[in-house]
């Protein structure tokens, strides 16, 4: 294991820049965005340099560590703050800083009219620092710090326009849902401390083969809960749609490309736990399948372009989670899909931002239509991302999503058909709703509001979109050429057996099937949405209505958690007031009453005191007499 003394700069630079921008205040307004972008770009440069160094080493010697300081040292209990950069982390470092830098550049133009642009860039840098800490921590405890950091950054950025109460509520909702997931992570850390005496990845990995299956399943389930919170997976998915309240670059960076994929990272990083517990793996698969269908179905009914893309994100991360649940062979495909998704989804979000920028922040797709002519660059880059997410060869999604579907079909047992079928169905629905988004936005009649004057965005905005579009086209091919990514990640995830022998379906069959359902879905969407009204139809089927209200996720949360929660707190307040305060008041009242009676004895007349004494003496004598007699 090599050591390095420079890894810390990767985190420290964005953190420092964020602090500078926040502390200097309005003085930094003029150049704050430039500093933030520069820092992000230099972090990317540093990441590339680390990658090149790592690439020169043989597979077993690629990981780099850096010990920062003794964090907690109590007797035999020791926790170090250390960083670990290995084959898995570097993928994330490059994605975070690369896409992050592009989005910094995009935001310079996108946020140019906002008077708080400096604050926005400070939060973006804070996010980059926290996310890098998340992927660079060498133990669950270090990861947890970054995990909370990105949660904070996400909260701050969703509620960036908190003068709008709805947005502030959305930020709070995201934070609370994330806290539920964080509970899972902290429980997993506690269990691993109890079980292995350490929370470092290497320590837990070494101990996992000897641990009881119950403990491993418990840790796995808690890690899955954490992943569900951060990655907006069932049952904690409800916050992602509302999180679109944040500025669009935030949605692209945090709620599409990077932060929401932290759950996939967590599960891939904990491969030693999930490899050892088939129950935990089964739970992961179930969550992945449910979410990928859930997100896809919700996506079909959303008229808000960002919410449609958010539902799509949820669904695509469902694919990744599903892949991680499929065992050693799935991890690499999950990361592959994560990277390609980072490109095409960030690109599409930036495209959506560009459209909104041109249409006076209108998000309703029914008010778009025919924008391809006036915004050609946006339309082309969005279109390339669209082809990538559909999995049309040779675009990126073809290499990553088809691999996941194929792995699902070949995972063995009768459940493989269910899982594979669900993944295939998801691909079809994905094609349907993404085609719907493209057709409603860029094709068809112009249903604009009369005051709208759409125009192509400035260079600073479309340049990042072009870069991401190139990524959407080429990343899948480049990363899977000669199983490049699979071999690269092999030392981390132990994907030793790529082919499991008995194949239910050949790759070719899967590709043809997937392409078939994609064409079906896309074709149906084109026919259905060739001409639409500018107002959403009121009389719709029960299914559409269910999808429009997110399949009732908020109603369920409200009925199952919020209402009983309020009832519980109201009950506790009543108990506090009536029982606990009541007991205190009762004591006071009793003493008051008794004192009222006793006070009459103290009348100030000596003779009545003398009478008391006399009575007392009389009683004493009486008792003495009775005792002795």
């Amino acid at each position, binding site marked *: 294991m090599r050591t390095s003394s420079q890894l810390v700069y990767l985190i420290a630079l964005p953190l420092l820049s964020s602090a500078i921008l926040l502390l200097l205040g309005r003085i930094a307004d003029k150049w704050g965005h430039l500093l933030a972008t520069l820092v992000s770009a230099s972090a990317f440069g540093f990441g590339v340099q680390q990658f090149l160094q790592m690439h020169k080493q043989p597979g077993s010697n690629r990981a780099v560590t850096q010990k920062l300081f003794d964090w907690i040292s109590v007797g035999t209990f020791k926790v170090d703050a250390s960083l670990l950069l290995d084959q898995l982390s570097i993928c994330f470092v490059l994605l975070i800083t690369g896409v992050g830098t592009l989005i910094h550049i995009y935001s310079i133009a996108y946020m140019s009219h906002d008077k708080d642009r400096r604050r926005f860039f400070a939060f973006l840098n804070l996010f980059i620092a926290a996310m890098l800490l998340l992927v660079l921590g060498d133990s669950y405890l270090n990861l947890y710090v970054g995990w909370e950091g990105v949660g904070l950054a996400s909260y701050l950025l969703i509620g960036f326009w908190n003068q709008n109460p709805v947005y502030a509520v959305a930020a709070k909702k995201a934070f609370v849902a994330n806290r539920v997931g964080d509970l899972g992570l902290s429980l997993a850390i506690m269990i691993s401390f109890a079980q292995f005496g350490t929370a470092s990845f290497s320590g837990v990995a070494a101990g996992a083969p000897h641990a009881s299956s119950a403990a491993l399943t418990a840790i796995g389930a808690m890690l899955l809960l954490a992943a569900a919170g951060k990655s907006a997976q069932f049952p904690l998915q409800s916050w992602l749609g509302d999180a679109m309240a944040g500025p669009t670059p935030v949605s692209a960076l945090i709620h599409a490309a990077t932060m929401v994929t932290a759950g996939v990272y967590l599960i891939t990083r904990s491969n030693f736990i999930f490899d050892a517990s088939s129950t935990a793996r089964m739970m992961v698969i179930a969550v992945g399948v449910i979410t990928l269908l859930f997100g896809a179905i919700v996506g079909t009914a959303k008229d808000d372009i960002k919410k449609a893309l958010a539902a799509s994100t949820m669904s695509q991360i469902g694919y990744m989670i599903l892949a991680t649940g499929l065992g050693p062979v799935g991890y690499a495909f999950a990361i592959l899909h994560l990277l390609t998704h980072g490109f095409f989804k960030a690109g599409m979000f930036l495209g959506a931002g560009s459209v909104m920028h041109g249409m006076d922040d209108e998000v309703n797709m029914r008010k778009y239509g025919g924008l391809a002519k006036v915004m050609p660059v946006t339309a082309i880059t969005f279109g390339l991302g669209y082809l990538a997410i559909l999995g049309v060869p040779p675009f990126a999604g073809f290499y990553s999503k088809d691999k996941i579907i194929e792995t699902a079909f070949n995972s063995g047992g009768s459940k493989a058909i269910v899982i594979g079928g669900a993944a295939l169905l998801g691909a079809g629905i994905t094609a349907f709703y993404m085609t719907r988004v493209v057709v409603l936005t860029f094709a068809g009649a112009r249903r604009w509001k009369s005051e709208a004057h759409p125009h192509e965005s400035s260079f600073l905005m479309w340049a990042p979109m072009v870069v991401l579009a190139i990524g959407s086209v080429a990343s899948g091919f480049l990363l899977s050429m000669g199983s490049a990514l699979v071999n690269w990640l092999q030392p981390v995830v132990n994907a030793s057996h790529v082919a499991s022998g008995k194949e239910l379906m050949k790759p070719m069959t899967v590709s043809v099937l997937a392409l078939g359902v994609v064409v079906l879905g896309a074709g149906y969407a084109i026919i259905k949405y060739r001409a639409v009204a500018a107002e959403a139809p009121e009389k719709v089927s029960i299914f559409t209505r269910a999808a429009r209200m997110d399949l009732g996720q908020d109603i369920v949360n409200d009925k199952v958690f919020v209402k009983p929660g309020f009832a519980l707190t109201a009950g506790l307040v009543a108990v506090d007031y009536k029982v606990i305060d009541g007991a205190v008041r009762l004591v006071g009242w009793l003493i008051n009453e008794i004192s009222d009676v006793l006070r009459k004895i103290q009348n*100030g*007349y*000596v*003779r009545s005191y*003398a*009478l008391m004494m*006399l009575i007392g003496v009389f009683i004493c004598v009486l008792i003495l007499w009775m005792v002795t007699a």
Partner: protein
Amino acid sequence: MDISNYLYLSVILFTIGALGVLIRRNAIVIFMCIELMLNASNLALVTFSRINGNLDGQVASFFTMVVAACEVVVGLAIIVTIYRSRRSASVDDASLLKN
């Protein structure tokens, strides 16, 4: 004559004294009642001395007389002083410390 009659007398005298202290308000009368109680106890002491055939009770009664004499000196002085300032011998009127 039965010697216990002295004891009954002593009890009667003591009770009269105690009742006087409890009931009367005139400081002089209360004072005399206290003397009455002291002398009732003296009578009882002397009687016990007689019954037991030793001098312990008689010695104790001498002590009581000495204390009573001192008490008379101090007590009468206080009563006279209060009477001079307040023109009243009622114990209820000497209530400056009350309230």
